């Protein structure tokens, strides 16, 4: 068998997972509908005053993004675990970390990217300014991959456990707090006409840090869970 280069392995895994996701579209869509629904509930809960809504919009959108990414994380390894594909993946002579990175990328493309694209529509519902929406999208673009990457660790650790979904949120949500803080902070800075670059730079730093370590840690976690 020809040995695949790391990059073509990555592309292979991403393509496979995307095809699988497209075959059962409802899973993807329910997560998105959940996101839209949670965000739409807030104005009903706190009242329709535009000032208030503008103020809470970044926080609401970010928390909803966090929750809906938790919702889809359970599926990251579960299906492959059930039908035995994951065991085969662990036996592959190529780097498991790259394989895991591929799964993270496809998870983000399916569950993170749509949130980024949906955010402006929801932002308009909350009467956000165009500039604030731009920064919100930028923050989500940097932050949602971090959520997928950190979440993958939790998903790998809780693989096949009873009550895995709730446990997963308990493990991962505290780790995601910095992302939430800087994501909403950037939008807050724009509305206060301050510089938002520091928030986004820190978010970028966290992105690079997560990209460096999480695939490897997740690979270790998978080995622990599967032995």
């Amino acid at each position, binding site marked *: 068998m020809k040995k695949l280069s790391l990059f073509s392995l990555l592309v292979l895994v991403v393509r496979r997972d995307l095809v699988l996701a497209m075959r059962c579209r409802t899973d993807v869509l329910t997560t998105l509908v959940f996101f839209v629904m949670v965000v739409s509930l807030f104005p009903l809960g706190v009242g329709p005053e535009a000032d208030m809504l503008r103020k809470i919009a970044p926080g609401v959108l970010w928390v909803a993004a966090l929750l809906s990414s938790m919702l889809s994380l359970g599926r990251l390894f579960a299906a492959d675990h059930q039908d035995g594909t994951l065991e085969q993946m662990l036996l592959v002579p190529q780097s498991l970390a790259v394989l895991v990175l591929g799964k993270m990328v496809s998870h983000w493309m399916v569950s993170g990217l749509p949130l980024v694209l949906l955010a402006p529509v929801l932002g308009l519902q909350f009467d956000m300014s165009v500039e604030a929406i731009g920064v919100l999208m930028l923050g989500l673009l940097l932050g949602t991959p971090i959520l997928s990457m950190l979440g993958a*660790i939790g998903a790998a*650790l*809780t693989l096949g*456990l*009873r*009550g895995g979904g709730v*446990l997963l949120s*308990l*493990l991962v*949500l*505290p*780790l995601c*707090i*910095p992302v939430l*803080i*800087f994501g909403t*902070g950037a939008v*807050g*800075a724009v509305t206060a006409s301050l510089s938002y670059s520091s928030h986004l730079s*820190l978010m970028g730093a*966290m992105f690079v840090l997560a990209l460096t*370590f999480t695939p490897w*840690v997740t690979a*270790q*976690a998978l080995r*622990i*869970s599967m*032995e």
Partner: protein
Amino acid sequence: MAINWFKYSAPTTFYGLAGKLVPWFAVASAALFAVGLYIGFAVAPMDATQGEFYRIIFIHVPASILSMFLYLIMAGYAALGLIFNTRLSAMMASAMAPTGALFAFISLWTGALWGKPMWGAWWVWDARMTSELILLFLYLGFIALHSSIDDPRRADRAAALLAIVGSVNVPIIYFSVKWWNTLHQGSTIKFSGTSMHIAMQQAMFTMLAACWLYAIAVTLARVRSIILEREKQTKWVSELPEVAQGEGKQ
């Protein structure tokens, strides 16, 4: 004579050693608690700005310090267990987690009790309080993950990995919370710049030592139970006098 440094890294030998150490640490801790509380309540003077309310720091500060240190020590043991595959390290880590969570909870609780008369609020989104709360969540996550995995070996290793990831994240979380807070509402109330009275210092350090000894005693006692539970099918456990006696009675 060559010293075998690793003699007590085996659960078999450590079980006996821990059993001998527990009463010493427990008695010393109780004595120091008594001394610390006496100095704290009877000797230390009233604070000029905070009145009698400040006395809660004698338990609040040691509890906060312990909750943070115990997490790091726990993560250290977890890492040892994961790297060298030693059984005892993982048992120590899981024995420490409940004590750490308890101290984090005491720290939050006493902080709230102090905050109500001093700040006029049970809870303020102060950077330190928020990070302490998140620390409690991390402890709870560790305990929850460990207890929901049936196979003890897998539970040890999965929880160890989580503890290491958590300890890497703790500084990131701490600084992000700190900056978030300063960005939102400027600096909040801080301890007044006045230096502490000598009796207050004595009381605080005595209480800190007492809390350390308590944590060690409880951890050792708990690790003994964990060792017994994990090794219950082995011969040496069934030959222990306390175990053999119990079985004889039944």
